[in-house]
Structures are given as structure tokens and as C-alpha cells.
């Protein structure tokens, strides 16, 4: 089951504080980068849920995010539905689509599952790319942002929008943690460890997989609906498999199955990309070599490496501290 260790809490607090500070102080470009990070973090969070805890390595999460974006775009611009309803609709549509993909792919494992998800993602990509209704590869613009002036937030301002995304990322993280700690999440982990035995115990395995995939899809859909609002324009590009591939890279780079790690990975990846592409147009080379180096270090991504190095030590120090400060308090079980 997903556990919050002292290190994970520390990382979360640092992340949240860093993001908040950036949201408050950054210039325009910094805010764009921050929002990009937050949305990528949401996507990789969704991906880590299924890949890290269910062994369902998906190469269609980019497409799911794109689906959420298109759903939101079409619902608002073509169907004239109010943005909040459209957002809920986009999340629901993406969730259903993901549920179906999860259900169909439930029988496949490993690379076959990867390819099955790739197939669905590419189908969506090809369809959208060529469909004149959705603007084809030229995309479609004029997508409105949510109107939150009622609560005093003007989302057309980059700063407010970044804060809004940060808030929703926090909510998504909370949802992901709750799901992973629920019966469903436990069962998912059981399935990842031994699917045959779970079935023999009486669990309808495909349902579990589909349900979690659907829930993960909803988070991806939310990320998509936000991305559509962020850019206020949507094109098929983000549906392409390479986007899913990059998301997967970020998850693994950050630390598969740690939830926190992939979010750190998202920040590292986006910042790195921007920094390097400022210096050279060959940023692929730099990122590629760096990726190889990280993996060759044999850790479970950046965060896994940190956990392996400092996790236990920090845990000990913190528990020492708490024991000293409030000795009489009953320790909660881990």
C-alpha cells in the first residue's frame, strides 16, 4: 500500500512550498513554466497510479489527457456548455474512455498492455488529426477559462491560473492517495503482485483494473481540461504517443510507485528542458544522456535514489525528535 514516510511528507511540503512561492513571485514566463509543470505533474500522477501500483504501464495517458482537453474544448466552444459543467463532463468522458481501455486491456500484460494502450491512443490521435470537425492538425482555439470571479479569482490572470492548477493538483494527489489506500487500491497492488492468486481468491480482476484505470483517466482528463484552458487552444499534438512516452519517462525518472517522485520528476524534466533548450537546440541529446545516467545509477528514479540514501536516516531522526518532544503521545502505526 502507498505509505507516507517522513521523507515523502518532507518532499511534499517542499514541493508545495516551492510551487506556491514560484506562483506568487514568478514572472510571466516563470508562471507558464510552473503551470506546465503542474499539469505534467497531474498527468504523471495519474500514470503512476496505474503503472506504479497496478503494473499497467500505459502509453495512452497523453491521449487521455488530450481527450479531456478536446472534450472540454468541444463542450464549451461547439456545444456552448458552461465551463464548470464542461469540465465535469470532460472528466467523466475521459474516465469512461479510460475505463473501457482498462477493461479491454485487462487481459494483456507487460509489453502487450503497453501496445494495447498505444493502439487506443494512436487511434484517437489519428482520428482527431484528420477530423475537420475538430480543426484537424490546425487545432481549435477560443477555449474559455473557468470563471471564478465569484470567489475573487480571475483565472485569465496567469498567476491565479497557476494557483488554481496547484490547488487542483493537490486535490488530485489527495484523491490518488485515498484511492490507493482504499480496498480498491489494496486489491490493485495484490493484482500487480499476483494476478492469478487474486482471481483464485474470488476477485474479479478485470473490474479492479478497469476501475482504477478509469479513475486514473479522470485525473488525466482533469489535467487535459486544465491544459485546454491554459493554452486556450488545443491541437492533436499532445495526443501523440511521444507525449505519453515522455510522461512515462518522467514517472520512471522520478521514481515509479512513489507518487511524490514522479511529481518531482515533472518539475525536473520541464525545468531541465527549458534550461537546456535555452543553451542549445540539441536539448534532446543532453536530456537523453542525463536519462541514461540516472537509470544507470540503478535507483528507482531520482526519488527512489533519495529514499534509498536518506529515507531511513530521516525517518529515524524524525521519530527521535517526536519521541523527545511528546514522549507521552501514543505513536500512530506506520
Amino acid at each position, binding site marked *: 500500500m502507498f505509505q507516507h514516510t517522513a521523507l515523502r511528507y518532507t518532499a511534499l511540503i517542499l514541493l508545495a512550498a516551492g510551487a506556491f512561492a514560484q506562483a506568487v513571485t514568478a514572472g*510571466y514566463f516563470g508562471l507558464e513554466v510552473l503551470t506546465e509543470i503542474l499539469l505534467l505533474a497531474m498527468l504523471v500522477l495519474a500514470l503512476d497510479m496505474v503503472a506504479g501500483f497496478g503494473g499497467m504501464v500505459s502509453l495512452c495517458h497523453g491521449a487521455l489527457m488530450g481527450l479531456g482537453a478536446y472534450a472540454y474544448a468541444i463542450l464549451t466552444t461547439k456545444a456552448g456548455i458552461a465551463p464548470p459543467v464542461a469540465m465535469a463532463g470532460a472528466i467523466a468522458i475521459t474516465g469512461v474512455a479510460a475505463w473501457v481501455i482498462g477493461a479491454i486491456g485487462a487481459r494483456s500484460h507487460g509489453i502487450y498492455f503497453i501496445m494495447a494502450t498505444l493502439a487506443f491512443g494512436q487511434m484517437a490521435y489519428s482520428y482527431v488529426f*484528420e477530423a475537420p470537425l475538430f480543426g484537424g*492538425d490546425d487545432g481549435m482555439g477560443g477555449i474559455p477559462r473557468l470563471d471564478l470571479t465569484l470567489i475573487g479569482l480571475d483565472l485569465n490572470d*496567469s498567476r491565479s491560473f497557476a494557483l488554481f492548477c496547484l490547488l487542483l493538483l493537490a486535490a488530485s494527489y489527495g484523491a490518488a492517495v485515498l484511492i490507493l489506500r482504499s480496498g480498491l487500491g489494496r486489491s490493485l497492488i495484490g493484482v500487480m503482485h499476483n494476478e492469478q492468486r487474486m482471481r483464485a481468491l474470488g476477485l474479479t480482476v478485470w473490474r479492479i483494473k478497469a476501475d482504477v484505470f478509469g479513475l486514473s483517466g479522470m485525473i488525466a482528463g482533469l489535467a487535459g481540461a486544465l491544459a485546454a484552458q491554459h*493554452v*486556450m*487552444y488545443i491541437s492533436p*499534438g*499532445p495526443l501523440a504517443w511521444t507525449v505519453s512516452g515522455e510522461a512515462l519517462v518522467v514517472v520512471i525518472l522520478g521514481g515509479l510507485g512513489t507518487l511524490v517522485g514522479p511529481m518531482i520528476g515533472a518539475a525536473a524534466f520541464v525545468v531541465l528542458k527549458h534550461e537546456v533548450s535555452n543553451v542549445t537546440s540539441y536539448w534532446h541529446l543532453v536530456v537523453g544522456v542525463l536519462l541514461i545516467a540516472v537509470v544507470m545509477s540503478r535507483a528507482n528514479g531520482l526519488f527512489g535514489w533519495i529514499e534509498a540514501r536518506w529515507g531511513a536516516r530521516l525517518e529515524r531522526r524524525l521519530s527521535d525528535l517526536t519521541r523527545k518532544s511528546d514522549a507521552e503521545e501514543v505513536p500512530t502505526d506506520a
Partner: protein
Amino acid sequence: EEVKVGLLLPFSGVYAALGNDIEAGFELALEEYGSETEATFSLMREDTEVKPPVALAKAKKLILQDKVDVMAGIVSSGVLGAVRDLIDGAGVPLIVANAGNDEATGAHCSPFITRMSFSNGQVNRPMGTWLFDQGITKVFTLAPDYAAGRQMIDGFTETFTAAGGEIVGQEFTPFQKTQDFGPFLAKAKASGAEAVYVFYAGGEAISFVKQYDSFGLKADLPLFGSGFLTSPLYVNAEGPAAEGVITALHYVPTIDNPENAAFVSAFLQKTGRIPSEYAVQGFDAARALIEATKTGASDRDSLANALRQVHFDGPRGTLSIDPATNNIVQPIYVYETVPGEFGLSQKVLAELPASADPLNGCAMAPVSN
């Protein structure tokens, strides 16, 4: 007065070669004509990576943070679509140096967006009538299945059928997923057409032209198309397979006028390359900016207004902006690819007169003053 110019171009990804040519052209124009105006220019380059969200972030940076007075560049129509609302809303003039989607100067036009390159329909429209005048009545068309592909072919079809020609078959091939054009070529061959008219660009153009030739179709089924098919940037990779292919484009390096001769030699000296249509688009984008500053414009509003009225003689001939759409008005050149001194060369067969694009749904405030 210093004018801050933001260059928004792809320097990595599939269109990096285009971005480099446009940038070189842009710089060349500033070097050659910069002295004609009082204004001085400072350039800021940002790489779009051909990704709309990235481009949008970079555009925001240029507009809001660097506070540029004018922007230029944009290769892909998708990127243009992504930044369009921002630019329109912020009121920063943008000189489009490539992206050719018809909507940019049609339904989605903006007083702040001026296009110095071309529109998809514009390049192909004159070819319909011209081809019919050459006595060809039945044509098979092929293009990649994406918006630009459809707009290019539609431009041609419109005038060709209006002139009395017949489209006997029309195929759109999966974009960037078609490695093998064999199946489509066999279909074209079986269609009973007298000629084939296509739009392909980049890697697809190379594969297409080579495969067309390898099937030996050129003899009985001459190949025509939008000039990007045999653009100087790619034609040497196509090799002899491109010989005899007749296409139309708004620029080829062999256009015979003094401005072009000077431009070609200057560009050759600067980069060691023969300029492509992309280079000239960059060159003319900078020329347009210089012309606009000559009127005294230096801030966003005045520049936008001035850009809508520029006209000058350049390597492509006489250019002007149609203030109704902000699209360029320019002649189109029909040319044949022929063997030349240094590899393949372009023999201009005809210069088709300039005409303004239809409004395409563009409704825009007229130019002020």
C-alpha cells in the same frame, strides 16, 4: 529608437531546417536594409519546438516579460493557432513568416497578424487555370491528410474545375505515416487521369517524388504540384527523380529580377546555401518590418497599423499586404525542375499575376488613418 523583435521559430524538431533558413533570411534583411530606417532592432529568439503549448509559453514570455514591440516567425499553422488569441488580445503585431493556413487570414484573421509568406490556397489557385490552359482536363490529386494538405488541394481543385477540368480521383494519405506511396500511385495510374497534381513537403516530398519516378509514371502521367514538392531545400535529395516535375510556388531562386539576383548572392555569401522560399519569407518579413518603421511607427499599435500597408519590390517581385485580410498579395511562379550547373535548378515557365485572397470569413476593422 530601438524596436524589440521577438523571433518565434522552431530550432529543434522536424522543422528546424525551416527555422534556420527563416532566421538567416531575417538577419540578412536587417543587415542589408536596416540602415534605411531610423529604428534599430534588437532580436530575441525563442525555440517553439513545433509544439503549440511550448510556443504559447514562449510567446507569453516575449510579450509580457521581454515586452517586445513586434514578433515574427511561426512555421507551423498549429503554433499560429495557439498564439493567435494571445497576440490578438495583447495587441502585439506578428509578421508570419511561414504558417500558411487559410484561416489565419480568413475566419481567424486579426489586425495584428500580418502574413508575409503565403496562404495555402493562394499558392495553388493559379495552377488550376494554368494547368487547364495547358490542355490537361483530367487530374488525379494526392496530398497528406491534414488541414494544409486539404487546403492546398482545395485551392487547386476550385480553379481547375471552374475552368472546366475534371478531378478523376482524389486521395489523402495518412500524414507522416505513409512510407510507401506505391498503393496510391497504382491507383492514380488506374484512374484514367492525364496528370497528377500533388502537395507534399519535407521528407514525404522526397519519398513521393522518388517513388513516383521509380514506377516510371512521369512519362505517361506528368507530375504537377504545389511548389513545396520540389523546394530547393529538398530537391537535391530527390535527385534526378525530380527532373521534369512542374510545380508552382511564390518563390524560386531563379526568378529573374535584380532584387532576387542580389538576394541570392548575398544569401549564398552569408550561409553558403541557395536561398529557399523559407529564406525569402524571413527576408521579406524583416523588409516589411523595416518598411513599417520607415513610416515612423515604433510601438505595437503603430507598427501593427503600418505593417498592414507595406508594399515593396523584393526578390519575389512586387509585394503588398491586402488590408482586408492582412495576407500578402504576390505573384506565383510556375517552374520546372531541371538539371543545372550545381545539381538541380528551377526553370521558371510562367509568372502568374498576383491576386488577393478571398475574404474567407475575415471581418476586421479597416486600417486606421
